[in-house]
């Protein structure tokens, strides 16, 4: 369980997180939605201990994020940020192998290698494994990063806008793989996502943020209503039931 | 600087003010300050010359006219012209951090003088000066040519490219200087120094004064060029001609100043930026201020360099290097807070 207590973060005079308290239970996919500047990515980054908070605390299975030893924590929770630009030229397999670093400190065992191949297989990356990252398309590269994070074999996986720069087809396949990671591998996945309809169709829980606070939290059915979405996004959204998922229509 | 004056939006302030009474008052005050500095500069030095002795003692008067007056004049001329050269380069590259010593211009001028010294060891000053100007021109054109190939015109990559270009050119210069045993000679014009200035050895600097005046005459065209090629051309400006003229002025000023007194680093960077904060970027309004401030700062640095280690003198270029680099750093780091 991830637990946030009175979490705050300010940049200069602007408050990005304003006393957020929240629990994310184990298992399933949790989506975080909200308008730009609501503090979604900041919150995720603090949970992933890439950024220090200004107040409050975050615990993961009772471990305090600030004080947990880095290596142990890295076996429990992994995070993938939006922009990943490496100066080193890596192949896909090289990158995925780094996911085993918390477990083996770079000396890979037979079991580690098996895990690497499993992660490559899980994301359909086997044919690309020897390719350099800068030779791949955006969607392929994004899958490679996700494979690294999965290879880390943590209970919790945090993904910051994993659909960024993906076309429709790749976005759908990414969401399917995330769903599958939760269902068949038993991961707890938390994603920050812009597209409310993807959140609705693929997650078990949705957290809606606004102005540095959690405005709503609940199942897709509870969040995907015109009233809630109007309140969160300041936008009239018509919600319809399409193919078993609640879809918001807001284009005109 | 920016904190003490509401200079963040100089354009908007400028329109409603115009050259009103306050403007003239400020100009008068600045002029008086530079005048006062110049007077101090006239009476500071190794031999003891006071205004009283000037009246009574003909020897003192002779010395005064032979060395003190030329020195102060040279400082004012060189300071003003280098600052104007910086202003022009900033207009042409649309970049606040460019000036002759961050664009390879000054380094090219040094290389030019060195090559002439090697090829024609006894060449008189005008020949060296011409070589310096030609080399400065080529160096500046090279810099602009390189810039044209840079797609990403981030304001920081431009001075980076210029500084690196300068470093590479300097390496060539040092190589030849080492090869021909001219390292010491090279040192004399690498750091600007006015201690050797006297009557008969500074008059070339009037040329750069004329260049500064020329810049003032074509100020409006330079301002438009500073808005970028697209706007300039669509307004109907002969952009190429203005760039050619601007580059010519910059090369000539740099070449002459380097060959007569040596390098005056960062002057062209600091002065136009300070002026721009107060009066904005209109060249015609800016040039008089740039001249005044440039001359004033150089005279002040020269006084410091004469006083700090009496009876020895420190090259003013060395003092300027410290002051200039410090101001440049403040500008860079302050920019971060704004952006």
């Amino acid at each position, binding site marked *: 369980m991830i637990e946030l207590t009175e979490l705050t973060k300010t940049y200069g005079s602007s408050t990005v997180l304003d006393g957020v308290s929240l629990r994310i239970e184990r298992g399933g996919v949790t989506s975080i939605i909200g308008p730009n500047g609501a503090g979604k990515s900041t919150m995720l980054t603090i949970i992933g201990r890439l950024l220090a908070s200004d107040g409050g605390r975050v615990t993961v299975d009772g471990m305090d994020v600030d004080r947990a030893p*880095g290596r142990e924590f890295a076996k429990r929770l992994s995070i993938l940020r939006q922009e990943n630009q490496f100066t080193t030229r890596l192949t896909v397999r090289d990158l995925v192998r780094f996911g085993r670093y918390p477990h083996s400190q770079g000396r890979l065992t037979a079991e580690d290698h098996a895990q690497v191949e499993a992660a490559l297989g899980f994301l359909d990356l086997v044919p690309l494994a020897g390719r350099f990252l800068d030779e791949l398309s955006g969607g392929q590269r994004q899958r490679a990063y996700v494979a690294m994070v999965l290879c880390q074999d943590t209970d919790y996986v945090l993904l910051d806008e994993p659909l960024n720069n993906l076309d429709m087809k790749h976005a759908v396949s990414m969401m399917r793989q995330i769903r599958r990671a939760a269902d068949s591998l038993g991961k707890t996945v938390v994603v920050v996502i812009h597209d409310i309809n993807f959140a609705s169709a693929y997650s078990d829980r949705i957290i809606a943020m606004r102005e540095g606070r959690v405005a709503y939290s609940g199942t897709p059915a509870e969040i995907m209503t015109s009233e809630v979405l109007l309140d969160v996004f300041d936008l009239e959204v018509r919600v319809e039931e399409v193919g078993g998922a609640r879809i918001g229509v807001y284009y005109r | 600087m920016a904190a003490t004056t509401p200079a963040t939006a100089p354009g908007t302030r400028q329109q409603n003010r115009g050259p009103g009474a306050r403007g003239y008052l400020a100009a008068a005050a600045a002029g008086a300050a530079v005048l006062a500095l110049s007077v101090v500069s006239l009476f500071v030095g190794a031999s003891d010359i006071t205004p009283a002795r000037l009246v009574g003692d003909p020897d003192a008067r002779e010395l005064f006219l032979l060395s003190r007056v030329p020195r102060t004049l040279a400082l004012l001329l060189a300071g003003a012209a280098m600052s104007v050269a910086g202003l022009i380069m900033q207009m042409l590259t649309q970049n606040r951090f460019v000036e002759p010593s961050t664009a390879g211009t000054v380094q090219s001028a040094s290389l030019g003088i060195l090559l002439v010294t090697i090829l024609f060891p006894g060449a008189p000053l005008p020949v060296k000066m011409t070589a310096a100007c030609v080399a400065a021109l080529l160096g500046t054109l090279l810099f602009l040519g390189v810039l044209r190939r840079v797609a990403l015109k981030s304001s*920081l990559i431009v001075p980076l490219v210029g500084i690196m270009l300068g470093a590479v050119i300097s390496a060539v210069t040092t190589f030849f200087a080492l090869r021909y045993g001219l390292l010491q000679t090279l040192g004399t014009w690498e750091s600007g120094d006015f201690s050797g200035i006297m009557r008969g050895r500074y008059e070339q600097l009037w040329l750069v004064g004329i260049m500064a005046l020329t810049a003032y005459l074509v100020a409006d065209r330079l301002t438009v060029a500073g808005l970028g090629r697209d706007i300039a051309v669509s307004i109907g400006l002969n952009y190429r001609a203005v760039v050619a003229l601007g580059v010519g002025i910059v090369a000539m000023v740099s070449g002459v100043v380097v060959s007569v007194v040596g390098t005056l680093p960062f002057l062209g960077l600091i002065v136009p930026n300070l002026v721009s904060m107060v009066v904005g970027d209109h060249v015609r309004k800016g040039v008089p201020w740039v001249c005044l401030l440039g001359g004033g700062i150089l005279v002040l640095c020269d006084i410091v360099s004469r006083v700090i280690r009496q009876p020895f003198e420190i090259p003013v270029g060395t003092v300027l290097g410290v002051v200039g680099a410090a101001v440049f750093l403040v500008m860079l780091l302050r920019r971060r807070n704004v952006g």
Partner: protein
Amino acid sequence: MSAEQDVRPEQGEEQARGPRRLGPRTVPAWARIAALAALAVLCAALYLTYGVSGNVAYVVERRTTVVLTMLVVAFAGAVSTVLFHTVTDNRILTPSIMGMEALFVLVQTCLVFVFGIAGLSALPPVAAFLSQTALMVVFALLLFQRMFTGGIGSLHLTLLVGIVFGVLFNSLSRLMQRLLDPNEYDALQGRLFARLTRADADLLPWVAVAVVLVGIYVWRRHRLLDVVSLGRETAVNLGVDHRRVAVRMLMIVALLVSVSTALVGPMTFFGFMAATLAYQVAGRHEHRYVLPTAFLVGLCTLVGGQFVLEHVLGHAGTLSVVIEFTGGALFLYFLLRKAAR
């Protein structure tokens, strides 16, 4: 999935023209390192023995000192630059370009300024060297910590700030040197403007020990460095205490820069050249290949360059200037290539 095939065409072509020609993986990295090592040995042998006549023992001894100096300098320049690249997660910034050599000169000048040459000479050279290095590390930490942790912002701003810091340090040194007594000024000049071929031989054994210890320390952490080179966020995600590693590596960088500058004076672009060529030559990203490759490339450049300049072209003493020129041009090329995208 057909998407597997949608390799970006422009990058694919670049690939075909670029490193692919050699085949990044066709020649194994260890074979490349062995070839470089052989080349370095060949250069050294040529340099040591070429045209030896007269007092053979003296000439060979003198040249051996030069080669040993170059060994240390190549190690210091190459390793410090690679470490700096790794920790800052970029391949443009180098310690020298960021003004650390200039900082060393400034620290030296300050020490002479405060204690005088006599006072400084009274100290045993090793103690003097260590105290200078310590001061240098402290200054470097104060100055560069923010840059290391990305506190300054964009890469170009960091780079420009570093360069201007270097200019400021140089100007300050020059100013303070001018304020010195002329005798002290001369003595200091002698200390600061050492050349590759005229290094302080007494310092060499001590420096060699320091360099070997540093080498062992770094080598034992090559896997950690692989992770750090992925950038702070990825490294933290993989359980690395990035801050601690960065500070320690910065201290090592400061030590190596001090060593190199004390021995042979500033060489701004040497490290950049060695590291940049090494990335191309090694064809691999792992530090266990990159570090030795960079060291050997640096060594070949120094010894081979000295051999060519001294015995073929007859320009002894200009090697550092030639490196300055080629390294500077290479740097400019990389800067423009990055900016042209």
